[in-house]
């Protein structure tokens, strides 16, 4: 026994949400060859197939690339601070990929260890994530290598599985998801399944065990010398979360804002004195990969990567977590032979 919904009913449901003033985001064609997670204006904007992975990730809806932390007004020698606008709107992300949804519990750790980030948390509370299990993958996908897969439920409130005849099986993962879909589905005998995901690209257990002692390994330089030092990998990544805090305004006032930042920029760690702890590009690539597979896991258990492949997919020199780790594993295993 299962719960199902027809494609038409699903679109109607999206239409109903939009009509009720709920903000709905999902995969949407934004240019001829471009699919992005974006706010939907109409139910038909939402794509439920025909692409592998949008060029961005759903982290945008929880941790936007630019967000005001508060406003300041300058009145002579006095300053007045004003809270940001209330974050009260209910939101739904539909058609998330499992690798994107899985990033949310990972980011939860960062934004809640010790100090709690209210902006992120408020959006998490307000957003329901409806995930669409994957039926296709490309060369860059490697979710299976980091312990996830095309139907991984982690981070999702509802899972949708494509069935024959324009139907979707609906599996509610959380109460939040259950509430969202309650009364919207029909009972059926059909159950959804997905084809196997991509073949494993690297041995996670081996790398986790080894990487901590490989800070000085020559592989970092060998494998990453071609890095162009842009932030495409970090900004399309569902789990990268580094940010900058800047003031924007004029002589009378303005906002203090949180903007995305990326460890691949030389400016990221540059001290005012001119000293830069990560002075070369391979050092910065090492930081990115080690943050994901050593620093973060040592602190929080999981790896800071969901295998979506966006880093490699959007890299102008085909360099990403997957390519670096493949090279690293090969090099380190050979060295021990």
């Amino acid at each position: 026994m299962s719960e199902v919904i027809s494609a038409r009913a699903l679109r109607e449901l999206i239409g109903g949400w939009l009509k009720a003033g709920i903000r709905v985001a999902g995969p949407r064609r934004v240019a001829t060859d471009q699919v992005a997670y974006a706010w939907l204006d109409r139910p038909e904007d939402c794509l439920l197939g025909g692409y592998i992975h949008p060029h961005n990730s759903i982290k945008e809806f929880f941790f936007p690339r630019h967000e005001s932390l508060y406003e300041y007004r300058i009145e002579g020698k006095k300053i007045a601070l004003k809270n940001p606008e209330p974050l009260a709107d209910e939101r739904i992300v539909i058609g998330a990929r499992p690798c994107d949804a899985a990033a949310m519990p990972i980011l939860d750790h960062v934004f809640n260890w010790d100090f709690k980030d209210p902006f992120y948390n408020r959006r998490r509370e307000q957003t329901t994530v409806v995930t669409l299990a994957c039926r296709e993958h490309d060369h860059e996908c490697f979710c299976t290598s980091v312990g996830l897969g095309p139907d991984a439920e982690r981070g999702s409130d509802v899972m949708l599985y494509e069935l024959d005849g324009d139907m979707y099986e609906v599996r509610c993962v959380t109460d939040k998801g259950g509430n969202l879909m309650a009364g919207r589905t029909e009972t059926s005998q059909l159950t959804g399944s997905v084809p196997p995901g991509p073949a494993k690209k690297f041995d996670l257990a081996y790398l986790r065990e080894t990487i901590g002692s490989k800070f000085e390994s020559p592989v970092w330089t060998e494998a990453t010398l071609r890095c162009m030092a842009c932030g495409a990998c970090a900004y399309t990544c569902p789990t990268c979360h580094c940010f900058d805090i800047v003031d924007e305004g004029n002589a009378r006032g303005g906002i203090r804002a949180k903007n995305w930042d990326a460890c691949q920029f030389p400016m990221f760690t540059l001290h005012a004195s001119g000293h830069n702890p990560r002075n070369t590009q391979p050092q910065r690539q090492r930081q990115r990969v080690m943050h994901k597979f050593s620093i973060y896991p040592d602190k929080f258990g999981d790896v800071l990567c969901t295998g979506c492949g966006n880093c490699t997919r959007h890299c102008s020199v085909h360099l990403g977590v997957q390519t670096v780790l493949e090279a690293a594993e090969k090099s380190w295993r050979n060295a021990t032979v």
Partner: protein
Amino acid sequence: MLNDLRQTARQLLADKKVDVVIGYGQADPAGPAYPVFITRPEDTEQLVFNDRCYNNLTTFLTRKEIRAMGRAAVLVKGCDAKSVVVLAVESQIDRQSVVVIGMACNGVGQPSLAKCRTCDVHMPRHTDMVIGQAADHAIEAKDRYAELAEMMSKSASERLAYWGQELSRCVKCYACRQVCPMCYCERCVADKNQPQVIKTSATTMGNLAWQINRAFHLASRCVGCDECTRACPAGINLRLLNLMLAQATEEQFDYRPGMDKDAQPVLGCFSVKDKECFIK
């Protein structure tokens, strides 16, 4: 052709004429090629050349990490060869100390990229050697800029709205800048904060200011390799911005960057006869 390339590279390294060959490698024939840095003659077998060799490798000629490797030989397609010319004209490289290996090219991408459809430099120019053969056809100037016609037929208001929409996707990853061989500044104006001329925020306005800045700093310097457009993760058609300026540069000054190594760069000089009908 591939044998010639590997043989040439091997010889250059074996004879110690260069310390590194900047070329293309490809781990997976189905995937894209990517830059490789070959320092030993025996590694030249890694070199490939095919229609997946997108990168403009001349960007690496000004990179700190690559410069540290010593004298370089670099593989260029016809379009990339133009950036070598501009880099030399702008004194960013010592042309005599770089070996430029031209690769005859019939276009990259399947289907070919937009730039390849109006390419008239299938055979690279101003290189130290050219490997392979390709036929060049003259392209009429108007065909080079045909893509602009549709955009320019819209009203100003519509165009502004179009760019606002396109640039709302920009995340300021600066991939467009980083892949560009002409963006070699030690510290980009976008990274300077005293004063902060361009907002660092990836808001529509911040992105517009950034892209205007990027496009105009490349005015009459951009060789049209279109790497910025290919590198953009958000798929913004930056090519159109570059084309606008390329067209104006060709129409007003009869100048195409990188085509003539002896021509004076347009914005590096002036003429007292320059048109000024727009100035009252």
